[in-house]
């Protein structure tokens, strides 16, 4: 027994090292792929006049669906920004998902809503609809008031039922779309209408930005360090990770905050699954599954320049709630579609994307926590190899910093939104500082979410919003 422990110990150490090496190598490769993708995209769109898309006669109209639950604080700003989108034909469908605050009242007052006796096809099941309203001043706005169905998926399904157009764009009520975001994200549907079934754009954080009349007018870095870490995380995730994954045809997630899909395909696979807590990932995986099973060619590109601004939590408590939910959702989706894993029938999704998410994103936090626990036990038993531990820690910090710097470079090459040199310095410092507590904290939160998942926890948890006006205070 006493001989077994050192072997086990060495085995775990090797596992952690191999995991660390592989994970960071994948992130590095994704960043390099993204770099190539962004450079190519930049050249491809030179001299493209997006206004031309605006004038194209046969651009598909889009239904923008906005599920809203207790979003009274920022809903008017969000809807105004959506109504100001530059796009030939679109409608904005706000689904008031049984809010207990004054969301509906605020909408009714701001947009002069009138009850509308709408007759629609209930293609997808959802909680009962109490009423459908149209605005007397904004013909593009439709508000669906429904009983709370327990999740965003239910609200989105109700919105899909009422929607009239062949493409739909799911947008969070606490998000702001840039005015040309729809024009840009719809391009793949124009260029390759048969094969494109969905497309995603970039999500960025509005914390630290100045918002006026539903548009981000000045981009800045937030004062709050938790928000700063998240700015960098979002850059890494969207510009590094998802763009790189999309280039490998391995898109599994299009953010629920901003994604556009073909309605016929979404309805064919049953719309959003109400039982899912990350309905965005669930829908994308199911759409891919359907297309693979029907042997129909498809693509889900990721476009690096349509931008959606959203507010990030600024307290550890709310952040933990959000990340715990995301991780539970990831576990739930991977468990639900486990049959796709390692199956050539499901193409890159089954052979690469799902195994990657299962091996690294899902188990990653446990392996990290195992590493921390192992180090703590070595310290307690007086067996810690301090020079090695310190050197390894710094390797981890600088590998992470290097990947973060790559994502900053990607930002510089793609949109170049952070205007001041000081912003780059703050982001770089954040890239180093996040390794000191933030990263470990999130690993514990994500590892804990497995326990929550096994206990059957299936709730969203409230997100405390400050509203764009307050979140927009720059340092």
């Amino acid at each position, binding site marked *: 027994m006493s001989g077994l422990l050192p072997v086990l110990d060495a085995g775990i150490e090797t596992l952690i090292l191999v995991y660390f090496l592989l994970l960071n190598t994948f992130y590095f490769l994704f960043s390099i792929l993204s770099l190539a993708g962004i450079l190519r995209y930049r050249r491809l769109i030179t*001299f493209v006049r997006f206004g031309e898309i605006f004038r194209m006669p046969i651009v598909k109209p889009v239904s923008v669906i906005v599920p809203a639950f207790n979003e009274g604080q920022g809903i008017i700003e969000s809807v105004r920004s959506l109504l100001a989108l530059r796009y030939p034909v679109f409608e904005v469908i706000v689904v008031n998902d049984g809010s207990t605050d004054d969301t509906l009242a605020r909408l009714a007052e701001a947009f002069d809503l*009138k009850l*509308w006796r709408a*007759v629609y096809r209930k293609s997808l099941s959802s909680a009962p609809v109490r009423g459908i309203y149209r605005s007397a001043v904004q*013909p593009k706005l439709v508000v669906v008031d429904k009983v709370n169905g327990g999740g965003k998926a239910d609200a989105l399904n109700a919105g899909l039922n009422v929607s009239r157009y062949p493409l739909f764009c799911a947008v969070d009520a606490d998000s702001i779309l840039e005015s040309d975001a729809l024009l840009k994200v719809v391009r793949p549907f124009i260029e*390759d*209408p048969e094969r494109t079934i969905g497309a995603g754009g970039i999500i960025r954080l509005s914390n630290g930005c100045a918002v006026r009349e539903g548009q981000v007018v000045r981009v800045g870095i937030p004062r709050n360090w938790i928000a700063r870490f998240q700015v960098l995380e979002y850059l890494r995730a969207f510009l590094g990770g998802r763009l790189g994954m999309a280039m490998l045809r391995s898109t599994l997630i299009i953010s629920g905050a901003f994604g556009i899909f073909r309605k016929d395909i979404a309805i064919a696979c049953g719309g959003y699954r109400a039982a899912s807590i990350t309905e965005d990932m669930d829908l994308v995986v199911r759409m891919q599954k359907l297309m693979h099973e029907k042997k129909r060619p498809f693509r889900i590109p990721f476009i690096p320049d349509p931008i959606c601004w959203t507010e990030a939590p600024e307290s550890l408590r709310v952040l933990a709630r959000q990340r715990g939910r995301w991780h539970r959702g990831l576990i739930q989706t991977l468990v639900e579609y486990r049959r796709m894993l390692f199956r050539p029938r499901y193409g890159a999704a089954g052979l690469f994307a799902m195994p990657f998410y299962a091996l690294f994103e899902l188990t990653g936090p446990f392996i990290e926590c195992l590493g921390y626990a192992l180090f703590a036990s070595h310290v307690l038993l007086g067996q810690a190899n301090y020079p090695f531990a310190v050197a390894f820690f710094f390797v981890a910090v600088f590998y992470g910093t290097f990947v973060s710097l790559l994502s900053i470079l990607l930002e*510089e090459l793609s949109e170049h939104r952070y205007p001041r040199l000081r912003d780059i310095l703050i982001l770089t410092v954040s890239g180093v500082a996040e390794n000191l507590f933030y990263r470990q904290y999130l690993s514990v939160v994500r590892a804990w979410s497995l326990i929550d998942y096994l206990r059957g926890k299936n709730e969203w948890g409230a997100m405390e919003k400050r509203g764009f006006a307050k979140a927009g205070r720059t340092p």
Partner: protein
Amino acid sequence: MLQTIVLFSFAYLLLLSGSLFLFILARRLLVDARERRDLRLYGEMEGELLEVLTAPDPNRAALAFARRHKPRPRVLKQLLVAYREALAGRALEPLRTIFERTIRGRCLRELRSPWLTTRLQNVRLFVDFSRPEEAAHLVNLLHDKPVVRLAALNALSGIASHDTLSVIFDLFERDPAPNFYAYSNVFNSLGQRIEPFLRMSLRRPLPPGKHALLVEMAGRLLLRGLYADIVRFALSPDKELRIRAARTLGRLAVPASRRTLLALAADPAWEVQAQAVRSLGHLRDWRAIPVLVKALFSPNWHVRYNAGHGLAAYGLVGVLQLQEVSRQKEDRFAADMAAMVLDSVVLTGGGA
């Protein structure tokens, strides 16, 4: 051993991260400096360009402008593209002159570049500034990758002569995997002059998808001269073609199409019925009203919806019919639909 590897990794990563950080900073400083310089140049050139455009002899002034600014192609390209969007017609001539005298030669050379993105960028400049004599260069690109091919088509549409139109339609007919959206955009920008070519293509045996696009374009461009050719497709065994024919007949609004549309309103496919009743609304022929009222009682939601909106298109007469249907108690679905359309008319003026 492991410790040494880790230490070396640390040193390597530190160096790599430091270099990347310095690269980002240096790049940012350079880009900022270049942007500032370009912005200043742009401002200066813009002022001069405005003088060129308002000069008594703009073409002569354009030549002088081109001579002065030939060494600054990057800013010049930006300026020309920006002003191309703002100007139209004869006002574009000075821009064309400047383009020809400064960057045309380089663009033509780069059309033969092995890099797709370089070819694409340059062919896009020809979308704005092409001359008929450049058609030969652009036609060569019609065998390139789809994205370049479409840009070349766009450029050709800007210098549409009889020959280039013939090339465009020939390419469309032979294209094994046409991008219908892109072609529709090209056809749309060509306008009504495509009528004879459209007629010829409609009469040729083509796949239903291609015919469907051509039928659609006839409606969008209001080519009433093609009415007889379109009516033929109302009898097509292909459902999609019948739908397009119904839609186009509604757009063309030729009174004689009432009979065809009435026949299509009784088509076995609900999609065709739905389109036909909508188009009957566009005709505003009072003899079609009973058919539209009957369609409001269809078991299919889409047919009811379009029939409702078809009736609303008649104005007051249609609204009165809708009111009547909304008050009857025999068919709740028809009543609900009529009420919804009435609500839409009242709330949004039918504009939504």
